[in-house]
């Protein structure tokens, strides 16, 4: 049944009927770490979800409704929705030391590069 095969190319759909946005991101690599800056305006800090699974870093957030009480919308340029984006991290990073700071609608992730294990010296016992 060839027409039912997707090869995993079909993205999973969300259960909530809200748009999913890809947040614009700046990525800067410094000598010791990888800095990622994502714009997620209106995101609920409690709903922020950052996971690193093997090499895939996934960032997801839900935005709280910006609907003011008792008002009707007259003109709209943006919509409330979810944010989702995944990155494949090409370098080994220290997963335990990843820092995430959310401030003023900007999520800032610092991923320290994993330091290579120091060369181990193996003493040789002469028999």
């Amino acid at each position, binding site marked *: 049944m060839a027409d039912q095969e997707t090869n995993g190319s079909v993205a999973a759909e969300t259960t909530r009927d809200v748009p999913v946005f890809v947040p614009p991101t*700046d990525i*800067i690599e*410094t000598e010791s770490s990888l800095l990622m800056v994502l714009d*997620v305006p*209106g995101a609920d800090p409690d709903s922020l979800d950052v996971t690193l699974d093997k090499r895939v870093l996934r960032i997801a957030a839900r935005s*709280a409704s910006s609907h*003011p009480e008792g*008002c009707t919308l007259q003109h709209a340029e943006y919509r409330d929705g979810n944010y989702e984006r995944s990155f494949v991290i090409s370098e080994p990073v220290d997963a335990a030391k990843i820092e995430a700071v959310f401030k003023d609608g900007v999520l800032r992730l610092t991923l320290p590069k994993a330091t290579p294990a120091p060369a181990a010296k193996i003493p040789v016992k002469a028999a």
Partner: protein
Amino acid sequence: MLAYQGNAGRWFDPLRQMRLMQQDMNRLMDSLRAPAPPEFPLINIWTGPDGAVITAEIPGVSPDDLEITVHQNTVTLRGQRVAEPVGEGDILHRRERVAGAFARSLVLPFRVDGDKAAAMFRNGLLRLDLPRPEADRPRKITVSRS
């Protein structure tokens, strides 16, 4: 399955050439697809019983750097977004966030009571309450029977 090595191979392979060309085209299209920087900030305009409410997505701007002025029926939003600094020796992989100074003016169909206007900034969202002055509001007229 072995991964296909695009640039390996000893013989002239038309399929390989086509695949390489396709990759080049995709790369070209990818850069074309990047949308032109939209108007910043994006705003929604709401109307309520007291006047208008404006909500705007302004991530990464601290409230102190936002300048909001109200004059009669015109509201102006001004501010600046600082680009992420890239130090010497750092590598910039992606720069998708827009940066720079921005200003947006809105003309409302009524005057705004500047003393009662209020602004709130939370999680990158600005909420601006723009009430109409008391004297300017529509008045309800009761009809009496003669």
